[in-house]
């Protein structure tokens, strides 16, 4: 699903070059729930931005869903994000003028779905994330956890090949964080959704079926492990 080879990202800060990624290689298979972990400043966000086609690496090769994405034009990248990727930001990033439902179906509308179709899909997904009764609420009427669930629903609406999430629980208390992580685990287990999540919280580790450890912009190691979504580890809310 994802093949990365020698991904490098250098930020030019005046005379100083900051090497955020120093040649990162790994592969992620369809249906995996992968955690990218590492301390603050280790390059996790930089990597996820590149995987999510929001940024371009300075060097390296990257194949996503069978496409050499580094060869795409701006326009093709935009289309690719719309149709094949979902992205969940740390601070939810909802469009404040839109209701929960509108935030969710916007991507579907952009893709050209009919009104009936996008309304139906958006409602289904809103139910799936447990916010069926919040459809017409705007951002300011929703709690942080609810906003993040809307953001996850938005990322899912076009049935993407991969969902990326960059520290989606960083602004939430641990109880709410757990419901979000459970939601991701359930999506992975029940829909086979490929998920790549960044985290630096050690207790999140048991949700990931594989962990890529980053340190100073380099892969320090990869571990396959028992995880909640495979039912190997207790703690997840069973649905």
């Amino acid at each position, binding site marked *: 699903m994802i093949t990365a080879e020698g991904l490098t990202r250098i930020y030019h800060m005046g005379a100083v070059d900051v090497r955020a990624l120093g040649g990162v290689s790994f592969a992620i298979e369809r249906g995996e729930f992968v955690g990218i972990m590492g301390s603050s400043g280790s390059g996790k966000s930089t990597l996820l*931005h590149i995987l*999510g086609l*929001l*940024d371009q690496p300075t060097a390296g090769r990257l194949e996503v869903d069978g496409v050499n994405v580094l060869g795409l034009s701006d*326009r093709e990248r*935009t*289309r*690719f*994000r*719309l*149709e094949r*990727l979902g*992205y969940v*930001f740390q601070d939810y*990033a909802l*469009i*404040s*003028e*839109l209701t929960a439902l*509108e935030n969710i179906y*916007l*991507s579907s*509308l*952009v893709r*050209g779905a009919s009104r009936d179709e996008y309304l139906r899909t958006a409602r289904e997904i809103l139910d799936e994330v447990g916010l069926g009764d919040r459809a017409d609420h*705007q951002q300011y009427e929703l709690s942080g956890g609810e906003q993040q669930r809307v953001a996850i629903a*938005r990322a899912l609406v076009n049935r993407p090949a991969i969902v990326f999430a960059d520290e989606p629980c960083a602004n939430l208390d641990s109880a709410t964080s757990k419901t979000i992580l459970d939601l991701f685990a359930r999506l992975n287990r029940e829909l086979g959704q490929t998920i790549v999540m960044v985290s630096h919280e050690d207790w999140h580790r048991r949700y990931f079926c594989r962990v890529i450890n980053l340190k100073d912009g380099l892969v320090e190691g990869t571990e396959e492990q028992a995880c909640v979504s495979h039912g190997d580890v207790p703690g997840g809310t069973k649905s």
Partner: protein
Amino acid sequence: MFEGLRVSAFLAGKALQRGNKGTLVLTVMIIALVFVNLVFLPSIVAGVVVLFNQQSVNYNYGNLIVEPRENEQAITDAGVLTRRIERIPGVLAVSPRLTAGGTVTFQGTSLARSVIGIVPSEERRVTLTATRMIEGEYLSDGDTGATVIGKTIAGNEDPRLDTQDSLGGVRVGDSITVTYTNGVVRRYLVKGIFQTDSFSTDASVFVTRSELEQVTGRSDWASQLLVRTRTDGDEEAFRLRLYSYGVQETVKTWQEKSRGIIGDVTNSFAIINLISTVVSLVIAVVVIFIVVFINTVNRRRQIGILKAIGIEPRLIVHSYVLQVLVICAVGAVAGLLLLSGVVQYLTLYPLRFPGGPVLPVVELLQVVQSVASLFVVSAIAGYVPAWKVAGEEILEAIRG
């Protein structure tokens, strides 16, 4: 293309619906005022032109003016020609006029003037001067030794009240003396004073044509024939008709005769108008630019998110342009309402110009042009800042 429009329209609609209402109303109001400003001044200019044209026809020229053949001083068989033109279909009346140069004197004040000799019964059917007497009465066909003069030349005893050279306060019953260029001197009793508000007519001195024939010793001469037609606006066609009926004298339309003056007036107004238009449009551009600029800068992050989820920058820019177009449309409608209020008021209480009351004349073309130019400049003024912000790197924008 239309898929894109659907997305832009959706975003624009929600932004208008849930955005800041105060800014929205204020922007619409400014656009409305700019629109009024774009249309109002031209409507007054058009009103002045209409007034001036009416005066040209009603007091100065009639519809057509028949003048002597080339190289001739006068129309020497005025009676025959008058009768002949009167019989041409569509001609209402013909008034032969004979003019003679002279100096008009009243109580020591002298002015050089052409004295116009008319046949009062004929002149009444061509011009409306006889209906604008403010003192005394109009001439009768048999009058000799009598004159009617305009309010401007009659003037006031207090010279500060005069707008042009005058005889210093002539009243009905006074006598004025005319010394003609051929040496003949006549005393005339002022029988009436008129005020038409037409500059040249109100500065004129009229006597009967038979009186002037005695002065000049020429009978059946005319300097010009004023022709009134049944319909206004067909002057060119009537001119050709006169020629086709064998008139060999020079035939001019009132438009040709007054072109110089009205041309000067409209040219001066055109310059004022251009300045006013440019200022109005610049105001519209600046306002729209600032509103959209502030709007997009405040939403940098939001725009970044829209791009991150896969919406093309182009569609985001279009959503802002669409918002601007909606604001313009509502503003134009509001402006139209405002304008019709102003026009209605000025129709009831017209502006008093030196030439008379001026009613605003709103021309459809002007309205269409103003709306169109407003739309075009606003769309550009909205496009530029939206395009600048939408072109930013996604991560830069999202970071805020």
